[in-house]
């Protein structure tokens, strides 16, 4: 009821209140983490849980600082990032090519898609042991697994994006006597871009998850290795730091792609 009264006048007061409320709520997002950290600190300070199960937050912070200062954290993060960039680039190029080919040619789709879908059914994690036998546990394995993780969503979304371009648009291209390349570049690809971007975003997320999986199973460096190693040594502080960095990088990559998506599709807004 109060909201109706407020709306009837006193614009300034309402705005001021809204401002305060906005401030409170953006701060309130931090309340739970702060509470959890306080609880965590209390639990470890009072010794409710042994240190191997829950190290003190200050201790974790200290480990994080040390690992940054010694360059260890940066080193492992760089190794992981390099793997993801290579694997993702290969998977993205292959996925785009495969998706475009299947999208443009019904014949190619008929021949390839059922087999592709059958292979896609086997989860990335399933491929790891098989590929370990085939290519060993070196860099090649990681790149292939990450590429596979990126490939599947990019292929499928590119395909469905191209198929969703209305036939009418292609007709227009025909009427304008566009060449095949012009049709592809000016009509089909712009129409498919939103879906392709969805695929690339999923692809990057999958690539990152696959990286963690493959590094957990077979690696002597990288963030996933840091997790395993910390686990084996019962250094939970290292494990927690590695988890945080994995989360932060995943978040940053997703945000970065989101930004580039908005940038590339800015014509959309201008057009409307």
């Amino acid at each position, binding site marked *: 009821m109060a909201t109706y009264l407020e709306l009837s006048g006193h614009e300034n007061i309402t705005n001021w209140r809204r401002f305060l409320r906005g401030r409170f709520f953006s701060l*309130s997002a931090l309340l739970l*983490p702060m509470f959890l950290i306080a609880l965590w600190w209390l639990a470890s300070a009072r010794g409710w849980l042994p240190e191997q199960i829950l190290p003190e937050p200050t201790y974790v912070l200290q480990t994080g600082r040390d690992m940054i200062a010694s360059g260890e954290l940066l080193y492992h993060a760089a190794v992981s990032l390099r793997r993801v960039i290579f694997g993702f680039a290969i998977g993205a190029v292959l996925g785009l090519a495969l998706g475009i080919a299947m999208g443009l040619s019904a014949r190619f789709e*008929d021949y390839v898609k059922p087999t592709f879908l059958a292979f896609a059914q086997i989860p990335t994690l*399933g491929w790891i*042991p*098989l590929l370990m*036998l085939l290519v060993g546990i070196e860099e090649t394995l990681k790149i292939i697994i990450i590429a596979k993780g990126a490939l599947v969503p990019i292929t499928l979304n590119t395909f469905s994006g191209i198929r969703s371009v209305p036939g009418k648009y292609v007709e227009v291209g025909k009427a304008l006597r566009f060449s095949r390349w012009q049709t592809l570049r000016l009509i089909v690809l712009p129409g498919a871009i939103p879906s392709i971007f969805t695929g690339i975003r999923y692809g990057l997320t999958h690539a990152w998850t696959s990286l963690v999986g493959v590094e957990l199973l077979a690696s002597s460096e990288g963030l996933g290795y840091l997790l395993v190693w910390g686990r084996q040594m019962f250094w*939970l502080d290292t494990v927690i730091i590695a988890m945080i960095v994995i989360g932060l990088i995943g978040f940053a990559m997703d945000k970065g792609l989101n930004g580039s998506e908005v940038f590339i599709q800015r014509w959309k807004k201008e057009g409307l």
Partner: protein
Amino acid sequence: MAAETSTRLVRIRRGLALPLLLLVAWEASGRLDLMDPRFLPAIEDVVRTAKREIIDNGLTGQLGASLLRNIAGFLIGCALGVSFGTLVAVTRLGDRLIMPTFNGLKQISLLAWIPLISVWFGFAEQAKVVFVALAAFIPIALNTYDGIKDAPAELVEVGRALRFRPWQRITKIYLPSALPTIATGIHLGLIYSWLATIGAEYFLAVGPGIGGLVIAGRERFDMALVMVGVIILGLVGFALNRLAGAAEARLLRWRA
């Protein structure tokens, strides 16, 4: 009609071409010794291994163990996810207090939780079920939350006009209108929980399960066994996906 069936036949024929070609190449490489059989065992070897595992080594039991922990984890994650998503979405405090933390935590790639979970819950059944439940929980909670947030304002208004109690509002308005989104979440949750089952069995390798079988095959350099395991992983994933799709369609039938 006839034209339709004939195009379908053409599509089926084309779809089978590549798998057949691969099978022929596989068989040929076995006959002609093109590949090291350690890397690519002959088709008979794989079939023989499958038979041996099913009859002598209790493959079905392993599969049962995997499925059981998959379903147990999924059900727990599903129940928690729907209730968490609902509670957070309908209460403003929950929305403001809890959602940002949840959004932060979900950034951590799922598999990265395994070491921590293994410290807290050990390597046995409990840890695996916890991990599978977490995998199902995240997409289901997220989709439930989104679905309820997207409930049409008019419907919410009707609930208010009829003086529904909070509980009635949830069961009569929010949940039904969020059902399609929740169904998507459950579908995703089912897929993720299977991935998590495999992951849990790989990394927390204690006890029976298909994932453990694959890892054992790798350690013994038994490619045939790995292949059998991987094919089963794919088939189960496929079946679960189909099941979820069918359940989704059935659940949403009333909306059509």
